[in-house]
């Protein structure tokens, strides 16, 4: 099993005719096709939307002016959408997807003002939909399906990601692949890897994905990549303390140097140390306080996880 997406997931790409979106479409189609999970229409991608471009095709995927047309063409509800339109148009695109019944929206676009993101997330909550991102690379279920640019071209994604018991959640798209590749090399495959985005407000933070992993029988442990800025690590720590989670967690914290540089942002828009709780050292202490193992280096993650998995089996 997996979380969020599986072999039967259908999705569209909004902004499909843009340069990056064309590549992303190719990658997702190839990944699905190579794994034998391509649907009858030729893959998980059942349509694309770019206003004014109806009638075109991108790698065989039909392009529509509206999400409603894509839904009509598909002949039923579409599960997801990958949104890769310029920041000024993202809110409208996401509203359109949600109002047309899409339940999972992956927002790739960077540099969207917080107010827009907060509005999208609130609408999603009202409609029972979920947002991943913005400023993220999407979701991958190794050897099954990928939704977004995560892992890159199909052959590169196959090098880094293998099926297995570990759920990966990361504020950095690139580091999602780096960590998964390290896990793969150590024989620990992934159930689902989610690039959640590097912005100050995102659709799904760690604590909001934990219940899904908790309910997924394939997942036996969680690896997270985290950074200074924001409160989502504190939220995760609180979630763990409130719920009796069966899943051991290993975390890696980047950007420790930022503690000495308050008020400055590095790497992602969300990484700014504004208060004591935002700092790397405070977050590490909080995560450890909740029983999470914090790795000093990425290469230590597999052994820490294996020890935790073994320990759990003994006590179980």
């Amino acid at each position, binding site marked *: 099993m997996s979380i969020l997406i599986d072999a039967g997931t259908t999705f569209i790409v909004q902004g499909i005719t843009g340069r990056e979106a064309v*590549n992303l479409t190719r990658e997702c189609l190839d990944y699905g096709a190579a794994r034998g999970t391509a649907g009858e229409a030729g893959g998980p991608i059942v349509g694309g939307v770019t206003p004014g471009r109806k009638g075109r095709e991108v790698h065989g995927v039909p392009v529509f002016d509206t999400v409603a047309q894509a839904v009509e063409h598909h002949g039923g509800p579409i599960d997801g959408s990958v949104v890769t339109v310029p920041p*000024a148009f993202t809110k409208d695109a996401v509203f359109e997807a949600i109002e047309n019944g899409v339940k999972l929206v992956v927002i790739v676009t960077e*540099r*969207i*003002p*917080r*107010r827009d*993101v*907060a*509005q999208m*997330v*609130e609408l999603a909550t*009202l409609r029972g939909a979920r947002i991943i991102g913005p400023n993220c690379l999407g979701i991958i279920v190794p050897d099954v399906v990928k939704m977004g*640019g*995560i*892992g*890159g*071209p199909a052959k*590169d*994604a196959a090098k*880094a990601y293998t099926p297995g018991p570990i759920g990966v959640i*990361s504020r*950095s*798209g*690139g*580091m999602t*692949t*780096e960590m998964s*590749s*390290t896990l793969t*090399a150590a024989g620990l495959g992934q159930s689902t890897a989610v690039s959640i985005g*590097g912005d*100050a*407000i995102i659709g799904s*933070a760690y604590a909001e994905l934990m219940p899904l992993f908790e309910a997924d029988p394939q997942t036996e442990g969680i690896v997270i990549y985290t*950074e200074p800025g924001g*409160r*989502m690590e504190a*939220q995760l720590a609180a979630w763990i303390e409130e719920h009796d989670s069966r899943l051991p967690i290993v975390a*890696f914290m*980047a*950007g*420790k*140097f*930022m503690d000495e*540089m*308050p*008020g*400055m942002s*590095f*790497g*992602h*828009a*969300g*990484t700014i140390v504004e*208060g004591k709780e935002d700092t790397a050292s405070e977050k590490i202490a909080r995560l450890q306080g909740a029983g999470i193992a914090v790795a*000093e*280096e*990425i*290469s230590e993650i597999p052994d820490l996880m294996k020890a935790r998995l073994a320990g759990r089996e003994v006590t179980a």
Partner: protein
Amino acid sequence: MRFFEYEAREIVKRAGIPVTDFGFTKDALEAKAIAERIGGPVVIKSQVLTGGRMKAGGVQFADTPEEAEAKAREVLQLEINGHVPRGVLVDPRAAVTQEYYAGVVWDGTRKQPVILFSDMGGIDIEEVAETHPDHVGRRHFSNLLPFADFQAKEVVASVGVTGPRLNRLVPIVTRLARVFVERDMTLAEINPLVELEDGSFVALDAHMEMENEARGRQQALLRDLGVGDEETRQAREATPFELAGEEVDAQDHRGVAGNVTEFDGDLGLVIGAGGGSLTLFDAVRKYGGRPANYCEIGGNPSVAKACGLAKLVLTKPGVDKIAVMMSIVSNTRVDIVARGVVKACLELGFDPAEKIAIFRIPGAWEEEGFKILEKYGVEYADRSVSMHEAARRAVEKVHGEVTA
């Protein structure tokens, strides 16, 4: 992006919140003229984007216009935490009977704005929240529904304010919440919000920060306030080295090769992407390395940009070698970065094998990239060498054998 107090007060004033009859100037003589117009005792406040103004002597009191001129001259020359004042604000000294606090910030966990209100104004709100939690009211509000007066009323009433005070405070807090939303602020704070002897309320100080990503759509306001596009308003002003990094990145629109921050070490870094750069910078320091800079490559930049960034770092005074490292790339091409950094060395008359301490970028087009590096004798590593191990090797080349 942080606003100066005089700008923040102007924003508050435009939102319909009462302010004092203040004036802003960069000139001591004009400060005197403002004081004359005010016609009474005034406060001269340094306009700097840093805290601790009062302690540093950046806030002075004057009883006469002549004194205002002298004090303004003094304050204008006073550097605070390394910041030269933009000017001074000349404010009538108000007869205050009570100080309040009103602020709006984002709650990233709830993903909604939250209003904070306190009847203990004039001090840091976090301190009040710790020492007198019952004196701080909080209320989240919807991103989708229009802000309503009753929401402001609830938060003001929650700390026990009632009577005419409540009815006078509600429209002020309502306008503050609306300006926060409409102007894409990340912080909108009036502290203190004061009650005067005649029972009226004025914003005596304001602190506003606007989201950088929204500067485009708030252009009209920024133009009105005289905020230039070039003003980054970062925690510290950009250095010439950092500005040169921006130029490299701006030379074409393909990908990113920039976001440079200057440090004073001897190991130049050509690193990426967002999270990778944070990880690698820490890794270099963990092994005792002293980075000369922070930077980011990502999104598949052109050879010219990668070359430009490498040249900039290689020619920084004190830089001995550069380390070219990234987390596994899937979009950025390894061969393009390899070509860029080798080209930079050659064009500067350096031996790439000597100047590039290590090249660790695994991923898309790595075979092609590694071939180029092999040709020039540059030490490279694939994904089997961890990011930290690559950083350790780079530090070792500069400083000799190292352990964490």
